[in-house]
């Protein structure tokens, strides 16, 4: 049931909340907030809180800087790590123009546009992300290091794992904030952890992910640790991905499930996979937006490199987990947790919908380890690969009217500008590897 303005005012009064963080994300998915006191809450709930949009990366120029925040009452929740008296709550917001129209550069509003497009077919996309992250120690100046608690030296003999304790606190805090956590566990690499969400509609899940990253960082800091969602912080060690489970529901039924079809996978599900594969190269810049994202998408570390799908093995881009019935779903394995979740879900939804609308048949599933295949074998299966770096990924995005449409022209232009700027900045650097390999030889 949706919360009303009165519900929130009542909850704030009962729980002794004194400050509200009106939250939204910039194009890079960084959480921003305008903090208000409860005396301004009436005004805030009526969408009358204004902020300077020109101060947010990728938003607007200085001459068009007045923006309004319109909170979504359903997203009200209280941060659990503050005392009840003087506590802090958050509301996720859409960004609006002064004339009352949704701001075309607001990622949350853009996802809503894609959700509305799916709604025309009575479809709802559910997402269940598995977000991985590392927890490192900080140095004496508080700067993050690559030293993990698992190799903590001093703490080696301790009976308690600091990371496990921090992760338990994270899960408890997230649950207190109303997020449903399906599982949480230590990951492959030292210091790496994973927290899985119970699936929900795309907007709720994107809100949850934004909150999740904030909560994880905050709790880690409270434990004297530093949490990072950087996709590949350490070379030669598994990076952090955000495998995302996707399904489409219509009137409460999972349309991916067809008990009479081969493998109990409906035709719509196959088309959805077809769309995800067809547009994979084009949306990778959005699901993997950093220079560093592409250091994760390399062979040998359980991250996908090739555009293919499979029932069983985990090397291709799309995997179909064994679960059937209401849990029938596809798992997109390329996204990483540095992405803007609103934009990432918008492009995934648009790609899958295109598959359904245009009846895009996926190629045959590849139930072999693609990393072990020869080039000839890959060619025989028609297996292409994901972009190898951010620049190539942006070029692929440029060539796709469909994914550009999923972002909207404003976001596409600003997003592209930001990504290319980052690439050019990276390209002119002289890296440690180059110094190490070339300096002694040339």
């Amino acid at each position, binding site marked *: 049931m949706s919360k009303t303005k009165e519900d929130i005012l009542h909850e704030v009064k009962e729980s002794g909340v004194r400050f509200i963080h009106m939250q939204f994300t910039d194009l890079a998915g960084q959480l921003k907030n305008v903090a208000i006191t409860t005396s301004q809450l009436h005004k805030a709930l009526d969408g009358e809180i204004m902020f300077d949009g020109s101060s947010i990366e990728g938003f607007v120029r200085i001459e068009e800087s007045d923006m309004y925040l319109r909170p979504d009452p359903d997203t009200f929740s209280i941060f659990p*790590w*503050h005392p009840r008296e003087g506590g802090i709550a958050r509301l996720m917001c859409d960004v609006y123009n002064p004339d009352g129209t949704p701001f075309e550069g607001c990622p949350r509003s853009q996802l809503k546009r894609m959700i509305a497009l799916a709604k025309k077919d009575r479809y709802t996309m559910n997402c269940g992300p598995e977000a991985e992250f590392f927890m490192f*120690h900080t140095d*004496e100046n508080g700067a993050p290091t690559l030293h993990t608690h698992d190799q903590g030296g001093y*703490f080696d003999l301790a009976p308690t794992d*600091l990371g496990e304790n921090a992760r338990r606190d994270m899960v408890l805090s997230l649950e207190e904030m109303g997020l449903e956590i399906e599982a949480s566990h230590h990951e492959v690499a030292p210091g790496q952890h994973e927290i899985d969400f119970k699936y929900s509609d795309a907007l709720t899940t994107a809100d949850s992910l934004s909150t999740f990253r904030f909560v994880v960082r905050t709790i880690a*800091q*409270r434990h*004297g*640790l530093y949490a990072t969602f950087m996709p590949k912080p350490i070379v030669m060690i598994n990076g952090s991905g955000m495998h995302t489970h996707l399904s489409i529901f219509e009137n409460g039924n999972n349309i991916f499930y067809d008990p009479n079809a081969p493998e109990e996978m409906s035709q719509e599900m196959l088309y959805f996979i077809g769309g995800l594969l067809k547009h994979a190269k084009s949306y990778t810049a959005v699901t993997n937006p950093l220079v560093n994202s592409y250091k994760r998408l390399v062979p040998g570390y359980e991250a996908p490199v090739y555009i293919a799908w499979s029932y069983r093995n985990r090397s291709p881009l799309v995997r179909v987990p064994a679960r059937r019935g209401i849990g029938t779903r596809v798992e997109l394995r390329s996204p990483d947790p540095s992405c803007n979740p609103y934009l990432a879900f918008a492009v995934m939804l648009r790609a899958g919908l295109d598959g359904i609308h245009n009846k895009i048949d996926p190629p045959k599933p590849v139930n072999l380890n693609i990393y072990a295949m020869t080039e000839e074998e890959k060619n025989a299966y028609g297996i292409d690969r994901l972009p190898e770096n951010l620049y190539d990924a942006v070029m692929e995005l440029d060539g796709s009217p469909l994914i550009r449409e999923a972002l909207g022209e404003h976001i596409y232009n600003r997003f592209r500008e930001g990504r290319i700027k980052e690439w050019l900045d990276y390209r002119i650097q002289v890296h440690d590897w180059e110094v190490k390999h070339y300096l002694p030889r040339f």
Partner: protein
Amino acid sequence: MVDNRYDYCIGTANPGFKKAVTAMLTERGFYSSGEGKNIPEFLRMLRLIQPWLAIIDTQLPPGNIKQLASIIEEDGLSAILYISTGSINLNGYMLLQWPVEELVLIAVAEALCLEFSHKKKLQQKIKGLEKKLSRREEIEKAKAILMNNMAIDEDSAYRYLQKTSMEHRVSIIEMAYRVIANPDQISF
């Protein structure tokens, strides 16, 4: 040396300060169970050791001692004693000025540990009461569902919960959870 059951962790990057404080506390039976030379390291130590008392040099790097204070306080990690080696205002926290007299340090440290012990007992009591209250709320919810579904009165709903919980060999609260999770189910 006096026998004392309290341990402490010390947060300081100043070896002289550490040595002096440790000497005074050891003399009176407090025992040191860890140290941290910066805030993150000290927080990790506190979470790992869970000592009775955290003794913190207000110049512990890299700064933001007030945030450290609120984390320790909010998460109930230990009793906190700040010793100011510079000039800082920490409203609401026990703050002694360095250099400190041994008798004052010991008296304050013991009082803080005792107070923390009482606080812990009270917190446990509150937790127990909250749990009881929430169990009662859940049972009330389950009773209301049963009364509505089976058109029975309150007493009969409670007896039904008791009976079915015994039949299923689960606690009455577990049975209440099952009823709440399946509000449309007619019988259990």
